[in-house]
């Protein structure tokens, strides 16, 4: 799941200083699950912005709605009427939402209320941790199912580095050394020999620096050849 957190209210307010009426769009996807951009948070943010502006003597009108998912055009189409008379659209989705909104409403000022953080998993209620670096070239099968690319501070593939002590990473004693976890896990599995092999440099072209990545499932693409789709 994509984990995103709200920017400080003062920062968001700064972006819409000159606006009189704004539309806040929450998202029913990941940010609802991680409790930062769903219906409740959208209402709270709208209210906080209104209060701030009232205190400043320049009242703000807000409209709110929640798209099922902001990362799919069909759910954004439904916003057409709500968008018409506002000065800005504030998106509470991950970074995809504001870009989709800006793409559809080309003459509208779109503000992102969020900082998109990472791809994480829930550790317990209200606590998420990064598990995947979205590098596009998965090494989990070599590392006992623990990702060194994102869970090691240095992303090293032949770890652990010389800073690992008592199972913790050199950057912080609260951070597990991913390579200690990998070592322990492979030991349980009787596969420690795997760690003796030199892992070659990674193909980072499958990561973020190869331009936007694409994935196509031709059979389900709209407009695909029906015969081919069959």
């Amino acid at each position, binding site marked *: 799941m994509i984990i995103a957190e709200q920017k400080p209210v003062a920062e968001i307010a700064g972006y819409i200083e000159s606006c009189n009426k704004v539309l806040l769009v929450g998202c029913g996807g990941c940010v609802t699950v991680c409790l930062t951009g769903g219906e409740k948070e959208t209402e709270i943010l709208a209210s906080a912005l209104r209060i701030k502006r009232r205190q400043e003597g320049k009242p703000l009108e807000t409209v709110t709605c929640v798209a099922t998912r902001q990362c799919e055009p069909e759910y954004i189409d439904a916003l057409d009427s709500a968008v018409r008379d506002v000065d800005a659209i504030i998106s509470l989705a991950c970074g995809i939402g504001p870009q989709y909104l800006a793409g559809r409403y080309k003459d509208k000022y779109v503000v992102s209320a969020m900082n998109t953080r990472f791809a994480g998993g829930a550790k317990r209620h209200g606590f998420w941790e990064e598990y995947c670096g979205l590098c596009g070239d998965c090494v989990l099968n070599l590392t006992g199912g623990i990702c060194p690319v994102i869970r090691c*501070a*240095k*992303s*090293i*593939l*032949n*770890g*652990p*580095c*010389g*800073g*690992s*002590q*008592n*199972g913790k990473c*050199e*950057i912080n004693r609260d951070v597990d*050394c991913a390579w*200690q976890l990998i*070592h*322990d896990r492979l030991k349980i599995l009787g596969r*420690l020999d795997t*760690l*003796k092999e*030199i*892992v*070659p*440099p*990674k193909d*980072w072209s499958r990561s973020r620096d190869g331009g936007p990545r694409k994935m196509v499932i031709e059979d389900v693409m709209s407009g695909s050849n029906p015969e081919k789709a069959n």
Partner: protein
Amino acid sequence: MESGKSKLKQILKSGRLAVTAEISPPKHASAEMIVQQTRLLGDYVDAANITDCQTAVVRMSSIGAGVHILREGIEPVVQMTCRDRNRIAIQSDLLGAYSLGIRNLLCLSGDHQMFGNHPTAKNVYDVDSIQLIRLVRRMKDEKLFFSGEAFNGQEPRFFVGAVANPFADPFEYRVDRLEKKINAGAEFIQTQTIYDLERFTRFMEMCVARGLHERAYILAGVTPLKSWRAARFLQTSVPGMIVPDDIVRRLKNAENQQEEGKNICLEQIKYIKEEVKGVSGFHIIAISWPEVVPDIVKSSGLYPRPVID
């Protein structure tokens, strides 16, 4: 000495104990301090190891500083970390370094940037230290760039070093990791500063049992301590370091802490020389105390240094 060859390598190859010391480049653009430190080391060391922005603090480049040292007549061991450069920058810097006469290279991953003076910097770690070792050897042995493309001229023929930390965890993997570095092509190894002699001895026994000391020259890292506060700092604030309480206590109770720090270092060298098998030399890391190096080399019987023709 034949031009283009590493003196450090020749001394190690001859079976004599090598002595190196560490020099930290300055946080400014003047070479004055490096020249002074180099003159201080004089003929007491075989080579000086130049750190590459250690603890992620911006300093004069290790290659730039290495050239200053070379001009003063001491052979540099230039450090190359993976933290700040991708494989393109690394290779480019290595070609430049070799062209300037640098012959020894120490490959390491580098301290994380959060320890330094630019904690918000983006790190690189395109390759890790083991991949770097292998790639540098590929340049030398196969005359190929990392990509597999052939050189159309002189290839860099570095004497390739790596680091090992017997005091990091998991301990049982530390010898495996050293072996991995040697398999990748490391020709000499510099250890983390040793204070826990018992753990170091165990580590070296495992290395010797596997014959690793015959496949790479292992230099034992030692750091003379100036004060009990310095010892406490290393004990509590430097990752991957073990400083036994005994050492802190001994310094704290000493009348002259500097003298005691030097004595402890000399005892460590003596112990390693006499009791620990498989060590090919010493790397003296005199943190903010460069003037103590000649004294330590002399008093430990490592002076005069061999002359290589």
